[in-house]
């Protein structure tokens, strides 16, 4: 019985592993890497929902009757694309941040911003 829900469990635990990585790491690129794990876990959940024991991949042949559910596969193809798209944009922004600030550590960026803010307030 326990093994039946294993796939769902793993996908949720992976999701939380990714989430922990996003929250706990201060490096922007590391956050992106953890974000990828976070997103991939959702894919695992969908594909597990669509699985049928002993059924074949959804390519119609005459002899087989049972096929797994094709719909989650279609949805997840889209989700994979969305994932890589947001990662590409995130990487581009990270590279720009590195060029502008010289660092991609969250706390150092905050410090630089704070210094700039203080300078602006003083000018007044």
């Amino acid at each position, binding site marked *: 019985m326990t093994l039946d829900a294993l796939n769902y469990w793993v996908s949720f635990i992976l999701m939380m592993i990714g989430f922990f990585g996003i929250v706990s790491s201060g490096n922007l690129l590391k956050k992106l890497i953890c974000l990828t794990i976070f997103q991939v876990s959702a894919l695992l959940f969908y594909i597990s929902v669509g699985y049928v024991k002993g059924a074949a991949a959804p*390519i119609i042949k005459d002899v087989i009757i049972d096929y797994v559910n094709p719909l989650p596969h279609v949805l997840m193809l889209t989700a994979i*694309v969305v994932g890589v798209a947001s990662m590409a944009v995130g990487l*581009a922004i990270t*590279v720009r941040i590195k060029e502008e600030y010289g660092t991609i550590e969250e706390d150092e960026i905050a410090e630089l911003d704070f210094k700039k803010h203080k300078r602006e307030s003083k000018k007044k």
Partner: protein
Amino acid sequence: MQEIVVLRVVVRLLLPFILMYALYILFHGEVSPGGGFQAGVIFAAGFIAYSLVNDLASLQKILPHFVVRIINALGVLIYAGVGVTTMFMGGRFLGFSAFRVLPADGQKLGIMLVEVGIGMVVFSVIMLVFYSFGERSGDDS
């Protein structure tokens, strides 16, 4: 750079096969796993492999920046264009059945065209992203 001669020759030999394989995935997607998206990725991977062993400039000579951008826009326009064409032929948006007398024939044609569109967009976007990053890094070194 002597030690990578082998690599260079191998990649140059492999490139046509990678591209062929991408086309196979594209046009065989109806009966086997695969389709436009995967084909675009593999097509781009071939070119990226080529530029990894040579350099970015030599790749951009074969495949200039503006060509990729045109492919990019064209891919979206093909996809949307197929949809608009079906509207003109009396169907709904992306209702491929309107293409032919037999709905299934129309579907087959429409799916093929759409997959080509996806493949073009995916290929060109990956190349664009690769170029953008590559140009930046070329600048720093």
